[in-house]
């Protein structure tokens, strides 16, 4: 039977019917023809005669196609897309590309997951660090016109205090003489014992100029701020912090007008301020309560007593330079007027924002750079993945090109795919950032202001979106252009064999590996330097033994313990009770514990030593302590003896000096028995005899060298009060916190006990900043290392797979497995070596910006550089070893048949 279907199809072809319809017609008509054919054959026609007879029906004047054309609906042709129509097709093209991309992702879930994860790590790290930068550096302070606010210091750089706290008399003169400022306000830290409602509590607080809050533009939640009239001695009014108001007063709306017992005196609450008010503070000082500064007359006249901090609001239109120039003029005038105190004392005017966030700035910017590097590595990895996949998709792309797709359109489609990938990555990355921030904020040093503002807000979202799009373009561009530019003819002739293995693809992949290695090397160097300097810091001797040491603040009320005998009696009883507790080795009264307070300081006059001129007269830090302090703290006594209980008001006044003080004043003599007094030799006041010399103790941090120090026993002091207790324990010091507190309350139930902490924790807080930057950079460097290792591994696996045939031939010709291993590893190491070299040069230049974060090592520390090089080399070796071993196991027969 002839194939009538085919005959009919041929005649229908000009109609371009829908295929199903064409089939149907062909089937129906063919049946008819077959029936006729069979009939003709039955009647005796030959097959050929029958066939011709049947087919003559089509040769008449009214051919099939023509009649059918009038009846049948034709399939609408796809409109031919001309280049000029591109604009109007953008949206539909994009939608098409997105759908296509989604299909591709679903088809390769493994690829998609790895790419999205790598991008999520990179983008998430960026979002997290950016939200920190956003909150701490970019967001304006919560005050009125914050750009006009400045902090003003005295400059006593020649004495080692480039930013010294101004004295009241100087501040009052600044206030009177300046014209560039609308107002100036001062404040000073002061702690308060809150009693009378529940447990006694020690509160951080400040004395502030009455105009401070109106200067800042802070609106109270309740009541009002201070009025100028209240800025005089004797007014007992207070402002509460929102958090204290909530915590201790249950957000009582009628708290205004209530009276409070602060340091044993009654204060009237006039208002509540929002907790967003954060004045620049040292350490973790958190203002809970504010009272007017109210200088007593003798304090207002004091020019040598430096304890204020000053904020000024510049008049609108006044520049920082103008304000600085004026303050310098005023300082010079004061230096002439009061040479005794103000010689060589200048001024420093800094924007408030810089004062609050300035010290975090270098670390944050370096971290921002670090996460950008992590993202770059992630990009390189995904680009590598895309390259490998582009090779696999070669046939698809070649076919589409051959069918007339235009290269630009294809490139665009591949770019849409990569941007989609990075947007997915950004989505997952934001989730990672959110989780990461929760952990991160726990490590943010306590003294960083506004840390509570770190959140993922609109700005962070926009930043993430931008990063994602740029990222998608960056890692997509090279593979996309690579994927669409090749010789079509060759590819199709090769039957779609992988031509991404061409020299161009290989070069690109190698370049990516080199870049990855270089960038991760730089990151690792950065992290290595920080870790190294952190170790340096931690290994420094603070001057005492911080382990098994409990510290707590015991601030005595001046009204309850106004004189020496009452204070001595209180502390004697406390020491007796604490000493009796089990697991307590020793206990001592202390004042201004190291690493919690800068320490008060003053110049001293030494018998037999001429006073230096005022501008060269160094300060000595002094502390009021009790007997047993040195042994309890573990501060070694170098010469002489410790204080005893007999060193009291009836005995000779005694003093213990630090080694540094001893060396400065008695470089060639035994200081024991020598005498010194406060201020200078000519000043009024009693002489004190040196009874001992102790090792130097660091003050606030490990970075500054210890200053000169001396110790008095509180038993011989009439005004200065010790404010702390240190307890050396046989067990975990914090486990004794409650029993020590109870021992104190057994002596005085109203006595506040605050900041109960282990000394180890306090010392660790001093390196919190360093730990924070080190930890983050180390994490990012770790991520970078893993990503780079994955990248090297991927490229090596790929290139080994490409060489399977070559390896097979070599092995068939008698190459040993070791030779093959050597060959492939050598290839990997060559790339890594290149990357290392580039990284080395760039790191050498870049790490200089870290100099301010480093301690004890240089930014080009050779040991760090060497160690990191070795680490990276080892990781790279491993990453190329695994695929090489696989190559080595190749069966020559299989390898030869490959491809």
């Amino acid at each position, binding site marked *: 039977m002839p194939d009538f279907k085919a005959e009919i199809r041929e005649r229908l072809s000009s109609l371009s019917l829908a295929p199903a319809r064409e089939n149907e017609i062909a089937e129906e008509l063919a*049946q008819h023809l077959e029936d006729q054919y069979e009939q003709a054959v039955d009647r005796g026609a030959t097959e050929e005669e029958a066939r011709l007879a049947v087919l003559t029906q089509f040769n008449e004047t009214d051919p*099939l196609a023509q009649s*059918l054309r*009038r009846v*049948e609906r034709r399939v609408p042709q796809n409109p031919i897309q001309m280049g000029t129509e591109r604009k109007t097709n953008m949206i539909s093209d994009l939608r098409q590309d997105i759908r296509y991309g989604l299909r591709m992702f679903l088809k390769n879930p493994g690829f998609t997951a790895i790419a999205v994860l790598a991008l999520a790590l990179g983008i998430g790290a960026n979002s997290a660090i950016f939200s920190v930068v956003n909150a701490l550096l970019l967001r304006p302070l919560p005050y009125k016109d914050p750009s006009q606010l400045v902090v003003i210091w005295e400059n006593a750089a020649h004495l080692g205090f480039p930013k010294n706290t101004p004295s009241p008399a100087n501040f009052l003169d600044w206030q009177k003489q300046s014209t560039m400022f609308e107002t100036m306000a001062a404040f000073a830290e002061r702690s308060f014992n809150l009693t009378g409602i529940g447990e006694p509590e020690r509160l951080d607080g400040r004395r502030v100029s009455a105009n401070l809050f109106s200067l800042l533009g802070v609106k109270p939640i309740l009541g009002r701020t201070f009025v100028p009239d209240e800025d005089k001695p004797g007014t007992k009014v207070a402002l509460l912090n929102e958090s204290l108001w909530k915590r201790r007063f249950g957000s009582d709306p009628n708290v205004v007008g209530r009276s409070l017992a602060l340091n044993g005196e009654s204060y009237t609450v006039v208002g509540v301020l929002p907790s967003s008010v954060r004045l620049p503070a040292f350490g973790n000082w958190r203002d809970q309560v504010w009272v007017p500064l109210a200088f007593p007359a003798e304090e207002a006249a004091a020019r040598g007593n430096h304890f204020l901090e000053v904020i000024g609001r510049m008049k609108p239109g006044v520049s920082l330079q103008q304000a600085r120039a004026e303050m310098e003029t005023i300082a010079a005038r004061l230096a002439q007027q009061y040479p005794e105190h103000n010689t060589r004392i200048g001024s420093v005017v800094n924007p408030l924002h810089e004062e609050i966030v300035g010290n975090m700035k270098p670390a944050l910017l370096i971290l921002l750079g670090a996460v950008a590097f992590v993202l770059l590595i992630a990009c390189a990895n995904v680009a590598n993945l895309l390259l490998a996949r582009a090779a696999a998709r070669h046939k698809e792309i070649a076919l589409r090109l051959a069918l007339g797709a235009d290269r630009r359109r294809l490139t665009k489609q591949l770019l849409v795919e990569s941007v989609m990938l990075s947007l997915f990555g950004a989505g997952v990355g934001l989730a990672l950032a959110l989780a990461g921030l929760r952990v991160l904020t726990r490590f943010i040093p306590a003294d960083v202001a506004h840390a509570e503002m770190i959140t993922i807000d609109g700005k962070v979202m926009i930043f993430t979106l931008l990063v994602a799009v740029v990222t998608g373009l960056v890692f997509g561009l090279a593979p996309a252009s690579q994927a669409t530019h090749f010789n079509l003819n060759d590819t199709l002739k090769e039957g779609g064999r992988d031509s991404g293995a061409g020299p161009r693809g290989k070069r690109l992949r190698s370049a990516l590996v080199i870049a990855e290695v270089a960038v991760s090397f730089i990151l690792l160097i950065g992290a290595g330097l920080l870790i190294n300097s952190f170790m340096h810091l931690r290994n420094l001797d603070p001057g005492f033994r911080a382990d098994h040491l409990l510290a707590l603040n015991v601030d005595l009320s001046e009204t309850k313990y106004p004189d020496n005998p009452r204070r001595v009696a209180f502390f004697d009883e406390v020491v007796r009770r604490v000493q009796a507790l089990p697991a307590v080795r020793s206990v001592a009264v202390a004042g201004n514990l190291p690493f919690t307070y800068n320490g008060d300081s003053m110049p001293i006059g030494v018998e037999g030593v001429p006073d230096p001129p005022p501008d060269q007269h160094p300060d000595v830090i002094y502390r009021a302590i009790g007997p047993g302090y040195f042994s309890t703290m573990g501060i070694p006594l170098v010469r002489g003896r410790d204080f005893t209980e007999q060193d009291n008001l009836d005995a000779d006044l005694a003093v213990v000096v630090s080694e540094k003080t001893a060396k400065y004043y008695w470089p060639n003599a035994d200081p024991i028995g020598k005498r010194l007094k406060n201020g200078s030799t000519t000043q009024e006041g009693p002489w004190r005899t040196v009874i001992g010399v102790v090792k130097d103790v660091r003050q606030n941090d490990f970075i500054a060298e210890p200053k000169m120090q001396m110790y008095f026993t509180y038993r011989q002091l009439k005004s200065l009060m010790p404010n702390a207790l240190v307890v050396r324990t046989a067990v975990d010091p914090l486990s004794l916190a409650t029993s020590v507190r109870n021992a104190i309350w057994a002596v005085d139930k109203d006595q506040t006990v605050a900041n109960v902490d282990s000394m180890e924790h306090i010392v660790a807080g001093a390196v919190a900043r360093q730990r924070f930057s080190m930890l983050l950079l180390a994490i990012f460097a770790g991520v970078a290392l893993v990503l780079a290792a994955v990248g090297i591994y991927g490229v090596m696996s790929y290139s080994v797979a490409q060489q399977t045939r070559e390896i097979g031939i070599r092995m068939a010709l008698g190459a040993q497995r070791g030779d093959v291993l050597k060959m492939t590893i050598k290839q990997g190491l060559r790339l890594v070596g290149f990357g290392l070299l580039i990284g080395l040069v760039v790191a050498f230049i870049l790490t200089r910006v870290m100099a301010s974060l480093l301690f004890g090592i240089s930014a080009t520390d050779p040991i760090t550089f060497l160690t990191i090089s070795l680490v990276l080399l080892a990781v790279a070796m491993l990453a190329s070893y695994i695929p090489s071993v696989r190559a080595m196991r190749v069966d020559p027969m299989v390898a030869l048949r490959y491809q």
Partner: protein
Amino acid sequence: MAYMASPILDRELKKGSAELLILSLVEDRPRHGYDIGQLIELRSRGALRFNVASLYPLLYRLEKRGWIRGRWVEKTGQRRRRYYRLTPAGAKILKAQREGWREFVEAIGLITGIQHA
């Protein structure tokens, strides 16, 4: 081969009456295309014949107008065939066309003296 009408008459007849013929043939029961072609040839004693190239376009046109409906039917032991049956709309048209045709033939007879058989 059977006698064939002159090409002119053939075309005129088809144009004028082919629809009527097909609708009449599927009136009492569904038939497939070959069956229809055979019946026309048979009942006209060979005077009328459709070839494939004109029969099927006509069937498709009638189907498209909704006068007949084709349906593939599979019977055991046979290949499937497309059977056409008259739709209600087709029945109305058939009735009207029959009427018109009878009037036309009568008129011709009255004029030409040819008696209705």
